């Protein structure tokens, strides 16, 4: 029985590998097939208590793109919900550094083209009965756009035996995409060739984060991708390059949030620098909105709740 399952699994893995090598069949005319989503794990087996990576590999037809967690001026962030056996926990989704595309009408989007892997660290429970195969599933939905936009969804699955974990054939894909994650920088910390600080400025009801970045070597281009949260609306306003110094201005406002007790002040922005030699680096800067902004009486959110209360 065990052998038979193992064989099934091997066949499945072989099929996935074959698919990955050949590339999914994409017809340029078929909008719905513009994006494919495949579930991958970086392990051959699930080992009790041993964290592994589970991700969705998206492949897009030429000129099509899907969206980052902040889609920008338009679009919709890609969504993945992992459906896991009982007792398994999933960390938040990891998002490689996106690219920026500017569409006619000065509409900025953040996302991915070609191929991207979005994944999470998964931890199985500390004990697991062996001699079983466990089903893993991802419920995936995305908006893909080229000249027009198409909603896509898929629920790719994968079955892994419980046993000793070894790197799978897909482990190299994970390693490659981990290299595309921005380096995380807490406030006041410096990273590889970079240091940064920031200050908040209030202009009327508007709040602005001014991020001052210092590079060991002057970059030729710096882009900024701010994240949005349920609480905060963050817009990239401007980036100024001045040799080894870059200034990034972000406009920050409270979203008309739903729950006033859950106003998280933390957010982040990813910056990506490019140097003359063509090399690139990306950093994830963690920011916290000031308490004055979060409790501002002129904010949308609080006025909004007043109205809701009146109605009830």
């Amino acid at each position, binding site marked *: 029985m065990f052998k038979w399952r193992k064989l099934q699994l091997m066949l499945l893995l072989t099929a996935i590998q074959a698919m990955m090598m050949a590339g999914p069949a994409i017809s340029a005319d078929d909008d719905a097939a513009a994006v494919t989503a495949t579930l991958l794990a970086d392990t051959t087996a699930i080992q009790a208590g041993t964290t592994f990576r589970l991700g969705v590999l998206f492949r897009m037809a030429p000129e099509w793109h899907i969206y980052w967690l902040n889609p920008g001026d*338009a*679009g919709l962030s890609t*969504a993945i919900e992992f459906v896991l056996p009982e007792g398994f926990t999933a960390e938040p989704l990891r998002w490689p550094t996106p690219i920026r595309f500017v569409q*006619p*009408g000065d509409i900025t989007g953040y996302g991915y083209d070609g191929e991207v892997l979005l994944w999470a660290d998964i931890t199985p429970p500390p004990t697991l009965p062996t001699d079983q195969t466990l089903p893993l599933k991802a419920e995936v939905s995305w908006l893909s756009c080229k000249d027009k936009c198409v909603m896509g969804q898929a629920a790719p699955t994968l079955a892994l035996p419980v046993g000793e974990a070894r790197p799978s054939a897909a482990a190299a894909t994970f390693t490659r995409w981990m290299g595309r994650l921005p380096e995380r920088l807490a406030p006041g910390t410096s990273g590889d060739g970079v240091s940064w600080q920031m200050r908040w400025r209030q202009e009327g009801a508007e709040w602005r984060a001014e991020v001052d970045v210092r590079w060991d070597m002057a970059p030729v281009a710096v882009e900024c991708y701010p994240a949005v949260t349920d609480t905060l609306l963050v817009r990239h306003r401007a980036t100024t390059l001045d040799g080894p110094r870059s200034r990034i201005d972000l406009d920050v406002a409270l979203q008309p949030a739903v729950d006033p007790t859950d106003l998280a002040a933390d957010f982040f922005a990813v910056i990506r620098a490019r140097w003359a030699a063509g090399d690139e680096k990306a950093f994830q800067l963690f920011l916290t909105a000031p308490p004055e902004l979060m409790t501002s009486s002129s904010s*949308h959110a609080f006025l909004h709740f007043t109205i809701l209360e009146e109605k009830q």
Partner: protein
Amino acid sequence: MNRRILIATLLAAGFLLAGAGLVTAGSATASLGHPAPDFNLRDTNGNEVKLSEYKGKIVVLEWINPDCPFVQRHYNNETMKKLADKYRDQDVVWLAVNSTHYMDAANNKQWAERFKLPYPILDDKTGTVGETYGAKTTPHLFIVDRMGKLVYDGAIDDDPRGQSQSPLSYVDSALQQLVKGAEVEVTETRPYGCSVKYKK
């Protein structure tokens, strides 16, 4: 310079501008709390529709693209039609605007007939009015108050994924406040949807 040629040139320029959806207000771009730029667009029957004709009324401008899945969802659910109907007898005018570069009055007419729309779809395929208002997404909604001032800019509701059982309609809330003569509380939200497909 020959005066006749000059006049002919000016007339031709004026004609071109009118054909391209002439925006006639003093301010170049729309901004919240300021007069909404006037425009002159044609509906599916070729009739001219000017924003300034509706002074004294509340006007909702809805950017639309029949090819966009977000628009399709809202039309299948009749989100816009129900709202337009709800406020029609309260001096609220609903105007849909299509800035999709590859669509014309015939596409708009087809969409309007399919959903039996009680409001016109205006042809802005040149994108002039869309860019003046800064319309980014379909749908993207703007509300102009009785004084001609722009008082709302943003999303139709708080449910980009269409998964909420009872989405909060920002436009409904704003209209409720406006018809009562109150100020709009939430004036700006993040619009969601497809990017407006402006001409390149």
